[in-house]
């Protein structure tokens, strides 16, 4: 930028008037140097793989023979694979159960916790503790809890009430709910924190006004608290859908997709296409399935993005 363009030493008043729109005097080279780490990281490990996944989804690639253009064959292959539809159904089932178990629980916990006046920190820490446990440890621990024998941890506890023993992970009807139960336990604390933050942002005047109208505690929860949380409830819903659509760790470590494909999820299927066989991976099928999953998720992400953005601008 030439010296003539701008004053060399701007007066403070000028600066204030121009405010945030003003650029820092500096050469273009500095901007390039500062952008370099980011351009390399994103170029190589984000933009390039994104472009490559589109290309690979119309190629036959397995790293052994050279890549060949095959048109939409990979897509047709994946769409005709009966396992895909099993995986889609299972992932939908997982997402549905996760909503059923995991959506109301953090909300109820957060509303109750927000009313705690003494030692609230202890409540928060306890609720968040499962989130801190490394996910792999949590799954391995719960895998032991789910032991199907009468001396399994859960079966012992339920046995006190005269229930069970249940086969848990070995039963094709109980396997998926077992996975969801663990995933809910592992994730609920994070959602509780989000709700707690949103609850402190509810203007107290609204409660005052409701009381003037003679509202009971329940009516305040129903007519003030919940409507005020509408936005954040929608965001956590979208976040949860995005998360559950990509579920991998639980089915991979708990059951490997079994028993008889009852817990095969979309991402596990993609993993199996690419890395499951010891011979050579079908990278074309894996990327074709990935691209289709990405399109579905991009819609949800765009929605999430729009919501949070419009809030921060207002």
């Amino acid at each position, binding site marked *: 930028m030439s010296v003539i363009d701008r004053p060399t030493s701007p007066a403070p008043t000028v600066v204030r008037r121009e405010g945030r729109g003003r650029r820092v005097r500096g050469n273009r080279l500095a901007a390039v140097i500062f952008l370099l780490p980011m351009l390399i990281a994103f170029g190589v490990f*984000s933009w390039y793989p*994104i472009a490559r996944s589109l290309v690979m989804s119309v190629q036959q690639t397995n790293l052994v023979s050279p890549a060949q253009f095959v048109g939409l064959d990979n897509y047709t292959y994946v769409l005709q694979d009966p396992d895909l539809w099993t995986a889609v159904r299972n992932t939908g089932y997982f997402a549905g159960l996760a909503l059923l178990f995991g959506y109301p629980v953090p909300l109820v916990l957060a509303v109750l916790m927000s009313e705690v006046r003494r030692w609230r920190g202890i409540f928060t820490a306890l609720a968040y503790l499962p989130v*801190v446990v490394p996910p792999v440890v949590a799954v391995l621990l719960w895998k032991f809890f789910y032991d199907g024998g009468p001396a399994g941890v859960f079966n012992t506890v339920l046995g006190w009430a005269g229930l069970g023993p249940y086969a848990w992970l070995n039963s094709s009807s109980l396997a998926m709910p077992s996975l969801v139960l663990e995933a809910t336990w592992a994730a609920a604390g994070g959602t509780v924190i*989000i709700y707690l933050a949103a609850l402190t942002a509810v203007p107290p005047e609204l409660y005052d006004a409701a009381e003037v109208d003679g509202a009971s505690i329940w009516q305040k929860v129903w007519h003030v608290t919940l409507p005020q949380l509408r936005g954040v409830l929608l965001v956590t819903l979208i976040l949860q859908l995005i998360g559950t659509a990509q579920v991998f760790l639980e089915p991979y470590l708990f059951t490997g997709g079994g028993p008889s494909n009852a817990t095969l999820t979309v991402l596990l299927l993609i993993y199996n296409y690419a890395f499951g066989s010891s011979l050579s991976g079908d990278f074309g099928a894996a990327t074709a399935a990935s691209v289709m999953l990405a399109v579905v998720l991009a819609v949800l992400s765009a929605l999430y993005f729009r919501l*949070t953005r419009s809030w921060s601008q207002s």
Partner: protein
Amino acid sequence: MSAETEDRGIVSIHERRRPAVRRTITVTEVGLLGFLVVIGLGPLLWLAKAAITPTRDTLREPMALWPHGLDFQNLATAWNHEHLDRYFLNTLAVAGGSWASQLLVATTAGYALSVLRPRYGKIITGMVLGTMLVPAVVLLVPLYLTALDVPVLHISLINSFWAVWLPAAASPFNVILVKRFFDNLPREVFEAAMVDGAGPFRLFWSIVLPMSRPILGVVSVFAVVAAWKDFLWPLLVLPDPDKQPLSVRLPVLADLIQLDVLLAALFVSTLIPVVLFLVFQRFFLRGAGLSGAVKG
């Protein structure tokens, strides 16, 4: 927030004085605390107990408290004999490197896009935002092939920590978070520094970074927690057991070693993040709130 408004929740102070309401609240709070202790702390307490219990007792009577005595040997066996120490160091290396690379990329990019503002900056910001729409896991296969044969350089990053560190740096979330924080820093300070003769590098190092401690703390917690938890990516790019972090190694060990030693290993792997959480609770919870609340 004043003390008066802070006390004001759904239940008013007036309502709290009524005996029936107070009783209900006490009962609810005790019940809630009991529930949270059982759910949040229960499994961890059980794990702590099982870590020092012989395998036979854990299998036969999982809920009994040491019917045949304690076995502290498990912890030592897990740490020394099963080389938990090495996998732990690998986890530290993975987390530390990912933290450094994420911080470097997020701060330099945020500074360039927010403060230096080159003319093409908007395009780059747009391209970063665009990647937010693409879920990371979907890039699994092309990213793996990229790590196998890095473009231009044609080297393989497999079995090198760089395979974890470098892709971690391409986090659009970090870049946008830091950029928005920088956007809100007062420009007058920058102008004053430049009048005093500070160049763009000096401005970055001596003015912008020291003003950004809160956001750097949040990004740091995000980076370390994510690296600590990551499983699938290190599983793919670090096939050599000597390089694998705890998260990748534990499921393999689960099939190989004695149950009591495994549970001891799980306990040790949990203890460290739990202690870190209890010490840095504020940063953890602030970061957790950010992912759902307004980003700005």
